[in-house]
């Protein structure tokens, strides 16, 4: 197992290397010109050319790549072409927010979805089940931007409330920070919950008819124990997969929610950088996000084997 982890971590090297090459060339394939985007309509061709030169965009591609990756290897992700801000520190600060948002949203979604999924499974085809399925489907099929907008609207119109403006980090002012985070987290949480609930319901159903469940019942276990200890744990693998995916996606940034709630997260960074063709920022953040994904996936794989002793990695 230990060697497995080491090997997986070593796999990071080719993966990140692949990502770096991929993203580097993608940025060159997609049409668009960072200089023009920055300088707008007023710039002379000379100024544009100069700016491109300043960014090193006139160098041969391999050279550009080597310059960039060389920097990355020494921990220097470069600076944003547009704002001149150092990229890595910016990514890390934003990641803190994104991470917090993800975590809270995930917890909210689990609190909602896993119990509901279980209830739906145990009351299969009853009215309760049906009702819960509708609710979960609403969660899945109502786009979260619509939900977010409705919440903002209702809160401001009927409760004269809107979340505080101006982001503060958790360690600066935890209360204000939570006040800022909580509504977007709820929105994200509910939309995640739908998927987790459905997955929970279906895999619990699958487990509940296994033979060993009967053994546990025969031992005199309360339904609670049967469900929460045994069925849930056994059903956890597909649930975990979906949770891992959701968390992975969220950690990559949630553009729309961040935008609606004016949160300085990773998603905003990447989106702006893409539309502005801020090559360096896009490259840096994609590399970073890829790193996070690989780590999340590793974690999920390790959790698989932690949950299921039959799964072991060599």
């Amino acid at each position, binding site marked *: *197992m*230990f060697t497995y982890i080491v090997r997986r971590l070593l796999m990071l090297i080719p993966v990140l290397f692949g990502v770096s090459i991929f993203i580097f060339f993608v940025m060159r394939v997609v049409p668009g010109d960072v200089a023009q985007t920055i300088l707008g309509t007023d710039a002379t061709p000379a100024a544009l050319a100069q700016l491109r030169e300043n960014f090193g965009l006139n160098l041969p591609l391999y050279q550009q790549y080597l310059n960039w990756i060389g920097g990355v290897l020494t921990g220097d992700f470069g600076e944003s072409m547009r704002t001149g801000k150092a990229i890595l520190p910016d990514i890390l600060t934003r990641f803190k927010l994104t991470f917090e948002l993800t975590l809270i949203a995930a917890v909210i979604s689990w609190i909602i979805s896993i119990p509901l999924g279980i209830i739906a499974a145990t009351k299969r085809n009853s009215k309760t089940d049906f009702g819960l399925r509708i609710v979960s489907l609403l969660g899945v099929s109502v786009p979260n931007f619509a939900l977010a907008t409705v919440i903002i609207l209702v809160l401001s119109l009927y409760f004269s409330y809107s979340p505080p403006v101006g982001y503060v980090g958790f360690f600066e002012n935890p209360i204000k920070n939570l006040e800022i985070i909580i509504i977007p987290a709820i929105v994200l949480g509910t939309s995640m919950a739908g998927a987790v609930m459905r997955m929970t319901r279906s895999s619990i159903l699958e487990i509940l008819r296994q*033979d060993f469940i009967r053994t546990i019942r025969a031992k005199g276990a309360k339904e609670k124990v049967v469900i929460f200890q045994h069925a849930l744990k056994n059903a956890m693998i597909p649930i975990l997969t979906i949770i891992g995916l959701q968390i992975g996606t969220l950690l990559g940034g949630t553009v729309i929610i961040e935008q609606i709630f004016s949160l300085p997260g990773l998603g905003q960074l990447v989106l702006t950088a893409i539309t502005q063709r801020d090559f360096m920022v896009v490259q840096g953040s994609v590399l970073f996000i890829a790193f996070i994904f690989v780590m999340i996936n590793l974690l999920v794989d390790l959790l698989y*084997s*932690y949950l299921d002793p039959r799964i*072991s990695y060599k």
Partner: protein
Amino acid sequence: MENNAILEVKDLTKYFPQKSGFIKKTNNYVRAVDGISFSIYPKETFSLVGESGCGKSTTGRTILRLQEPTSGQVLFKGTDLLDYNKREFRKLRKDLQMIFQDPYSSLNPRMTVRELLKEPVLTHRLVSKKDAEKLVQDIAEKVGLSKEQLNRHPHEFSGGQRQRISIARALVLNPELVILDEAVSALDVSIQAQILNLLMDLQEELELTYLFISHDLNVVKHVSDRVGVMYLGQMMEMTHTDELYDNPLHPYTQSLLSAIPSTNPFQKKERIILKGDVPDPANPPSGCPFRLRCPKAHERCAIEKPAYQEVKSNHFVACHLYDQSENPKQARISVDPTSAAHTTKVDG
């Protein structure tokens, strides 16, 4: 005789890494099969008996490379099975079949019996798709499954019925060698009789060879030509069936035979109830694996592992009691007269 064996197992071992903790570091190995050798000759039935957990199933699985062996050789008609590549071996599987111990988990819950039985036929292209149906119905009838049951799924059957499906699934291929892992243990006597008859008929008809893994010594006695007795991953005794039942040498075999339940409620017999349990195969005892439970154990058993040797013609045993090497110590040991075992004569 050696060279015309259909299956020759040489020094087969299978160790399972044993893991502990969250990091699951391999800290030890379960010696499920620990260097056993035997041969099976065409058209014979060779039985493996032994305590639960002694490695019978693992032996069977390793022979078929359902688990890769740790070391050793498995020669099928003179060629080492381990030399085949995966594709070739898949073809060969038609001739090497196995019936699994557990009929509950070994059938795909989402296939109907018909699909389950058709699958091997079509996989090995025995007959055309059209003719497959007939073949399936034939075999189903032979194992006692009715036609309408073919459309059912495994969970709708009782344990015995499922076992019959498993048997049909293996036999439909007309294999040369069949490994039957507790194939009839789950069956009631009447069906068991029916299946055993079927197995014997098929053996005759198709010249099958069986490796019969069982702990039902009555059945073993009935079907086998030769029997090997395993204990803790090792072969303890091996000989012809009659010889074994009439003249068991190894104390373990003796206790096994004494434990056969009789079907006559009026005649309760004395038996050797062994103390203790099969030792942990991850930490086998020193010397003889059986010594901790052996009524006849002595000092030497703890120090030295008994050699597996032919003490009589075609009668192999691994016990210091029958050591024929010129170790003078051994001579002093004879059958313990206080032992509850009856009818054990030791001839030298």
